[in-house]
């Protein structure tokens, strides 16, 4: 019994680690930069593909790729926000108009990135194997690479949390999340901070994809959307604007996903959706939000 429970718990954590990371990224983009980035999953997909390319053609191990991917994806996100969403913000007038427009723009971005991947890598699915040896944990067997992704997610998540809490930029981000106008008045360069948030969000997506690719899943250019949906559900679960909540929510959803897919594979998305619906109807502020 205890073994079963631990098995489920660990399995859930392993799934949840990546969910937590991508949810925090999405939350930064929506909660702070106010962009409902439905192309988020596409950056996750891109991260997975970049890692695959580096591994299969240059032999760069994923953990080393992280050092390349993190700044790369951060830069992509930062630049996209600067050259597109910032002017869109200005031309949109009100916040509600910007919310709608930026979401639609992200819809366009989804197809841009997805088809870019199709053009570069083609549609046949790909995958690679790394650290795929089995590890025994409390009686159950898990793949080593999945344990590594969990550890990586926790480290990255915690590092980011420390960044938010102790650095000046981190504090500026938190101020902007609470009240962008007040933050502006306090001297925070708001456009810069929002672009940074979008960049961090893209970075976490890229890293999430990197970690995902390590778990020996099959990559395809259309794999992104389901992760966008997972990120959305986790952010709602954890409470909009609540970074900690998104992180914890990721693990909760991961647990649910693991339990459901052990008994009925193929229904985990449906289960997530049912949770989503219940949340929206009963507690849209999230389980952990205020």
């Amino acid at each position, binding site marked *: 019994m205890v073994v079963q429970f631990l098995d489920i718990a660990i399995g859930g954590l392993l799934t949840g680690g990546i969910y937590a990371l991508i949810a925090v990224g999405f939350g930064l983009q929506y909660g702070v930069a106010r962009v*409902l980035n*439905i192309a988020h999953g596409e950056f996750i997909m891109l991260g997975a593909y970049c890692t695959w390319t580096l591994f299969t053609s240059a032999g760069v191990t994923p953990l080393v790729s992280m050092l390349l991917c993190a700044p790369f994806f951060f830069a992509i996100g930062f630049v996209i926000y600067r050259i*597109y969403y910032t*002017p*869109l913000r200005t*031309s*949109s007038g009100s916040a509600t108009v910007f*919310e*709608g*427009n930026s*979401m*639609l*723009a992200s*819809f*366009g*971005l*989804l*197809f*841009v*990135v*997805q*088809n*870019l991947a*199709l*053009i570069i890598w083609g549609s046949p699915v790909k995958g690679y194997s790394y650290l795929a040896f089995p590890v025994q944990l409390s009686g159950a067997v898990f793949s080593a690479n999945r344990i590594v992704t969990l550890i990586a997610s926790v480290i990255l998540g915690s590092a980011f949390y420390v960044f938010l809490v102790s650095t000046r930029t981190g504090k500026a981000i938190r101020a902007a999340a609470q009240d962008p106008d007040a933050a502006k008045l306090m001297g925070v360069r708001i456009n810069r901070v929002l672009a940074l948030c979008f960049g961090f969000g893209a970075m976490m997506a890229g890293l999430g994809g990197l970690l995902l690719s390590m778990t020996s899943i099959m990559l395809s250019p259309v794999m992104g*959307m*389901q992760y*966008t*949906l997972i990120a*959305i559900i986790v952010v*709602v679960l954890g409470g909009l604007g609540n970074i900690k909540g998104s992180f914890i929510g990721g693990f909760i959803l991961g647990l649910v996903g693991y339990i459901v897919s052990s008994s*009925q594979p*193929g*229904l985990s*998305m*449906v289960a997530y*959706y049912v949770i*989503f*619906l219940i949340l*929206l*109807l009963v507690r*849209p502020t999230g389980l952990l939000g205020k």
Partner: protein
Amino acid sequence: MINSRGKWSSPIALILLLLLLVALPAYGPSEYTVILITNILMYVVLTVSWAIFSGPTGYISLAPAAFFGVGVYASAILSSDLPLAMVVPIGGAASFILAYLVGSLTLRLRGMYFTMFTFGLVELVRNSVHWWEVNISGTVGRLIISADNTTVFYAMVATFLAALLASYLIKRSRFGLALRSIGESEEAAAHSGVNVNRVKVVMFAVSAFFMGATGATMSMRWTYIDPTLAFNIQFSFMPVLMAIFGGMGHLYAPITGATIVSLLEEFLTTKFPYYYMFLFGLTMLVVILFMPYGLEGTIEKWRKKIKAGLRSSHETT
């Protein structure tokens, strides 16, 4: 029927266009033209029906692909037993019911939550149908008894007429007025006597009906469908792009947008088969930033300038 905008020129032009369409296959243009126009009509109906609800209310639905797909599946399941004339409305009805359900649950929420939910609906339905096929019916995908291109063409024309009529009638009715008021201030609308939730849900379902009918019609062009083919997010993207590109105010706007973009798609799929969706994604980005009111916005601006120009020239003479 009450409204303060209605022009005589539009209905006449429309009737002429319709006569042209109906007579088209009889004049013996190539099979290709018939197929092309069927495609264009498909996109026009999807765009016009999307604009019926999302245009005035501002609730952006990303679910058209889900409703289209439901129609496709309804047709696939029933077309061997029932005649075409019944299958198409049933496909529409199935989508109507799904939309009514989804709308009742999510339209009382903030717009963004509604949008998020509709975004995932396509995946959700696809996943569910796939799971059903794997675990319950045993076979994934099914064969369709397809119909010839001319039959599909006429079915699409009929659906187009119905959608156009519905859109026109709604716009001119008090419900069109109610939809616009909801888009401006739900609270004020409610206090003016509008049953806001009921209007939103019913109109959302009505727009889904035509998307389902379109799916049911178009599925007869395919010989085989499966969840991935039927529930494709592209069918949510294209109508939204076309409506944003064309505009959503006057009736001509989404029709124009859909026609232009689908002709563009036709041209691009032959010349740049691997790049065309990439280009459309870029188009969306460009249109949102530089043409937020779409073609209609530009056209209406010119109209006003011309009117003002004519007026001032009248004054000087």
